[in-house]
């Protein structure tokens, strides 16, 4: 008889989420030792805190195993097909801002737009015999974006971390990744294409459309949303 609220389990995202709820009279805290993933909620009865990796929250929402969850819009759109039918956006939380962008080596002075990228990819393929490689972990979002933008002769290669380094390591020619300040890109001698903003993401509170609720749970949800100042 509880509403399950999924929250990122570590780092700044967790702290800022705690702050956001705290400012609205819902106090969250981790319980047990530092290493134990358990938490408590005060201020509203019947809400259970579930600490999860931000990357798993979209899946848990879609499966209906949690009723509410805080995660980035980028992760929801990458991981869920027809995301609007599986989750509803309740509130953007104003932190965790990040842009999904496409970046190329700064020494490619001839490439500034997607049109340039497409032309460079065609020439690259005929010269090197394989499609220009773009390293990313956002396969679906990037593929749809490039398809829509009329870019051809590229291939996506998977990179789950240190994506900015793939170009220097010769495992990719370009990257598509999340950036907030652009510092890491600059440090790795990359520049952002001027018209290739794939998605603007921030931490967002989502409600699952799949999680079932009985009357008591619906009342808890109502009370929680009211406390948070959100329309249902």
């Amino acid at each position, binding site marked *: 008889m509880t509403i399950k609220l999924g929250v990122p389990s570590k780092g700044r995202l967790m702290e800022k989420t705690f702050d956001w709820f705290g400012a609205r009279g819902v106090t969250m805290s981790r319980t047990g030792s530092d290493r134990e993933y358990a938490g408590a909620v005060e201020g509203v009865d019947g809400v259970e805190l579930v600490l999860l990796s931000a990357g798993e929250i979209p899946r848990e929402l879609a499966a209906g195993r949690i009723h509410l969850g805080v995660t980035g819009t980028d992760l929801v759109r990458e991981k869920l097909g027809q995301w609007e039918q599986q989750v509803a956006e309740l509130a953007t939380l104003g932190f965790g801002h990040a842009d999904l962008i496409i970046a190329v080596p700064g*020494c490619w002075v001839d490439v500034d737009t997607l049109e340039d990228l497409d032309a460079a990819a065609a020439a690259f393929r005929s010269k090197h015999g394989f499609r220009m490689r773009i390293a990313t972990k956002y396969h*679906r979002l990037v593929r749809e974006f490039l398809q829509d933008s009329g870019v*051809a002769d590229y291939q996506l290669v998977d990179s789950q971390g240190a994506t900015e380094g793939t170009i*220097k390591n010769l495992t990719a020619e370009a990257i598509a990744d999340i950036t907030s300040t652009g510092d890491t890109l600059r440090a790795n001698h990359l520049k952002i294409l001027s018209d290739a903003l794939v998605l603007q993401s921030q931490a967002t509170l989502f409600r699952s459309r799949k999680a079932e609720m009985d009357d008591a749970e619906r009342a808890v949800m109502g009370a929680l949303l009211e406390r948070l100042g959100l329309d249902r």
Partner: protein
Amino acid sequence: MSEKAKIRARAAALTSGFEAAGAVAVETPVLLPAEALLDLYGEDIRGRAYVTSDALRGEQMLRPDFTVPVVQMHMAHGAEPARYTYAGEVFRRQEEDQSRANEYMQVGYEVFDRENPAASDAEVFAVMQEALKGVELRAATGDIGILAAAVAGLETTERRKRALARHIWRPRKFKALLDRYSGKAEMPASRAALLAADDPMEHDYPDIGLRSQAEVTERIDGLRADAAADPISPLQVELIEALLNVRETLPNALEHIRDLAVDMPAITEAAFRLRDRMHALEAHGVDVETLEFEASYGRTSMEYYDGFVFGFYVPGRADLPPVATGGRYDALTQVLGQGREIPAVGGVIRPGILVQLEDAA
């Protein structure tokens, strides 16, 4: 009978019809090496096909269509001319629409013959139409070869023609390029700045990555040459647009395209091929007087059809995928044949849709 058994029975009936038309039944694996498919179709296929892998064979793809394995099989040890038929499941990843099948049966008929392309085109269409006899369907036809010929005949640089030909299958991008090359759309500010720079290669970045600075210079030289080239004339753009808008019955479309060929001599040969195909279709008993022809048809499908294209649709049921599709894919055999090529044309029927229609009737 279960739905699946009905579909199997329908597929078997179609296969025997194709065998009676002269095709040899062939089998292909369900798991295909992903590399060849990815290289051929690019990322689009990864969005549509299921990819899996093991530590020994690497990435494998659940058969997204039969064309590639059948062509590979033919190129490896087929005698010419050849006619093949096959039946089996194909798998298509669906990420946006749950109502679309991700696994369904296809029954195909493919002709590999150098002799008379018009006759082969007509044969495949007629065999498909015969197999679908008794089902009320609307047939659509087109010819990617005519547009390709029109692009090749434009009075402009080879570089521009190559770029346009490359994007025939992406209508929006094609239009954007045509606007750029005809001076209708201005070049982006960043490109203007690059071309105006005294030394565009002067920058503070280290040289990283596989794409060399020589390649960058080469592209800048190309951009310079392009900026110096005359725009494609408004008349030529109009002709291309008129061609893309041709949509009428086949005999009228042929007349229309012949008229356009007066100002676009480059499509003359393609217009003759269209005429030859029309006559060949007539000889196969196809009613060409009512057959629809649309010059843009097939441009948004997968980019391997490069000549005749066709599809059979259920009238009033835009929600259903086409019951049958097909076309000519000469260029694909060139890529897969690594130097060797064999003109090829074929089509597939989805027996599942037929069973669905028959159940509803």
